């Protein structure tokens, strides 16, 4: 039985060779605690790029 997160990838031929995010990866995208940590990390990365660009 196909996992729910994989269902769409069988709908079109052009979908079949693409990467499929796991259910865990999809869940972590909206996990508030993990995303708060990523928020800090992304901001630091962006500030570094911004500082290198001015």
């Amino acid at each position, binding site marked *: 039985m196909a996992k729910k997160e994989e269902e769409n990838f069988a709908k079109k031929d*052009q979908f079949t*060779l693409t990467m499929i995010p796991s259910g865990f990866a999809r869940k972590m*995208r909206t996990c508030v605690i993990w995303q708060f940590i990523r928020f800090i990390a*992304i901001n630091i990365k962006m500030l570094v790029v911004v500082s*290198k660009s001015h």
Partner: protein
Amino acid sequence: MARLIVMGGGVSGHTAATFAKKWLGNEHEVVVVTPNSQWNWIPSNIWVGVGQMNKEDVVFPLAPVYEKAGIDYRQAKAISIHPYGNKQSDKEYITIEYTGQGKEGQTEELTYDYLINATGPKLNFDATPGLGDGKGQMGSNTVSVCTADHAVHANLELQQIFEKAKKGERQKILVGTGHGMCTCQGAAFEYIFNIEHEAKKAGVRDMLDIKWISNESFLGDFGMGGLHMKVGGYVVSSKLFAESLFSERDVPWLIGAHVSKVEKGKAHYELLDGTTGVEEFDFAMLIPPFAGVGFKAYDKEGEDMTDVIFAPNGFMKVDAKYDAGAYENWKASDWPRTYQNPTFKNMFACGIAFAPPHLISKPASSVNGTPINPTPPRTGMPSGIIGKAVAHSVCDMIKNGAENAHLHEASMAEMGAACVASAGKGLTTGTAAAMTVYPVVPDFEKYPGTGRDTDYTFGEIGLAGHWIKHILHHLFIYKAKLKPGWTLIPE
């Protein structure tokens, strides 16, 4: 007292004008000429286009801000540039035509000592038959999110589609680029995924067929040849991530497509392999190609000298290498550094208004010879940084003399950009792709392989990206309103 005229009040022009006034003080005059009465934070228009923000959330009136800053604001469109003056005077000037302030339709000549062209683009809807109305405006066959008013209209149309879907009528949505030479794929990318997100929330996703059409030769090109990111021990192309995201959301794609004609409910296209086809739709948002706003330039005798100052596409020539030739010869050093016009040293261009030396993406055309490739993006962070650098140069020229001044540099081949592309709005359910790219224009001599520094080029999708985009919305509007501490917020 010197007078600086800034033509355009968007991200780049507003940045240039406000910093110039701050640095020059009241000893010198800064004039902004823009046909708009309101400033628009364009990146949030996509949320207006799906009904998640109102127009008032993304615009504010310019007049009070410029009055507070001491900037002379003319709500007018610039018509022509006269860099040698006229028969009566050697003083350079521009002609403007008012669009507001109770002087609608009146023309005026404004002399200048320094000129910054930051007009942004002309939305060239008429480049594709049926995309425009034949009079330079958007037609009735498709919608747009390029301006706040367009986005309001787009949302009204979209809600009708959702209503029909709720009644059980299957609907087809087409989003992407409306011509083979478009840029701004990012805005269309954000819009299609916000539609998809809202459709799920409204419970109508199963009744919608949503399709992407674009002039990119691969998904994730974004007009900058894509980007590579370090993931799981690999350096991975944005193509893989984009294709994965589109597949995950059940959004098929048609790429390498030049939309050649639009009719009611139909988009005709040509692909890179020369085949043609028709994509039917009930709702379509197709980004128009950009062109220069169509300034004319005249010499002292009144003879047309537009081609001296402007490239054929209407964008202003700056210190770029315009004769780089074939793709194999392109270098990062082709890109402009100071944005000074090579003929007139008191003239600069910033933001979309400067003529890029060539594409960033690899050029492509169909077997029939139709060019189908994204044009270079010059919006967002680079636009603001360039505006500030140009203002800095002009201020130094005014204060130290044109000969002694240091010209400030902001090459897109040496600067990075942070970009946040929304894929759905919601405090705990929203997601966005947060990306940085360094440098914007790949430098294959300095970074052989991907052309970019993969330590500073990254991307990931998640709720954190959405929070950042939302915070940036408020931060940049705060900055544009010149509220306390505005200079501390980076471009």
